């Protein structure tokens, strides 16, 4: 079956030159074509794993798992979404399964993605004199995202970075869409707190945040 993605169904994940051909050939068992798919997508899959897990070793393990899983499931790709969207969804589901196996299986993710009160953003609108506009660059934001509690970070990465809709995130995280929206909002508020005071992003504070 020909896998031509529907351009109306994806936003930032535009098709890559040579990708459709590589998918078709890989489906027929061509190892070079699968290597091509790996070369095309390894960086984004790895980055996604790294942002969700915050750990290079685990991110590499999950990248490996994602591509092995892709090899087994490639036949089921029908081109209803962009290949990269489909691959990222597959990756997210594997990472979530991995996290549940690590210890989140006893309570629902809906509960566990709510951080403690201590981690929750403060209900402080702050001063209008300290607007972030112009002061937030990619590196600074990356540091701040790494300091978010895991549940906030997950929803923020999936929605604001990866571009998934709340209903998709709710399905993946097994929570309600309202919960996804609320977690995203709290994540952005927490990021605002972190970004408004550069002291928060100093290495010693990052270690303290990460250990929470």
């Amino acid at each position, binding site marked *: 079956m020909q896998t031509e993605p529907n351009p109306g169904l994806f936003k930032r994940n535009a098709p890559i030159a040579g990708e459709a051909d590589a998918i078709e050939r890989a489906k027929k068992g061509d190892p070079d074509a699968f290597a091509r798919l790996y070369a095309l997508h390894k960086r984004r899959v790895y980055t996604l794993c790294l942002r969700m897990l915050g750990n290079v070793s685990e991110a*590499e393990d999950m990248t490996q798992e994602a591509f092995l899983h892709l090899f087994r499931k490639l036949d089921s790709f029908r081109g209803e979404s962009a290949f990269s969207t489909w691959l990222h969804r597959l990756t997210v589901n594997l990472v979530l399964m991995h996290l549940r196996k690590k210890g989140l299986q006893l309570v629902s993710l809906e509960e566990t993605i709510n951080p403690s009160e201590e981690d929750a953003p403060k209900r402080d609108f702050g001063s209008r004199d300290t607007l972030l506009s112009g002061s937030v660059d990619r590196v600074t934001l990356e540091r701040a995202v790494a300091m978010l509690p895991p549940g906030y970070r997950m929803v923020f990465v999936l929605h604001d970075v990866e571009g998934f809709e709340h209903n998709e995130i709710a399905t993946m995280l097994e929570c309600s869409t309202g919960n996804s929206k609320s977690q995203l909002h709290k994540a952005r508020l927490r990021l605002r707190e972190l970004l408004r005071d550069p002291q928060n992003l100093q290495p010693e504070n990052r270690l303290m945040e990460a250990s929470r």
Partner: protein
Amino acid sequence: MKDLASINLDKMTTAEFEEYLPELFEASGGSISADPRFANFFREHANCAALVRDLETIAEQAKSLFEPMGDPSDAVWSNIASKLKDQNASNDEER
């Protein structure tokens, strides 16, 4: 969830605004500060306007994080290739 259509945007309190904000963001496609329906409210509540602009900045800047940070080590592909080779050999044996 509050029906946003029933909210008087000019007369809502800061607390109400805070309560509705996640939904307002979603309904506005992430661009509340440019929405003229909120102009009066933001004129009266400068801190709310600042909050919204900051959150919009964060959401906008987050898109830049979509670009990848780096490559996985070469060992990742070596492991994948090795496992696929083993799997193919095992499939051949079964045939």
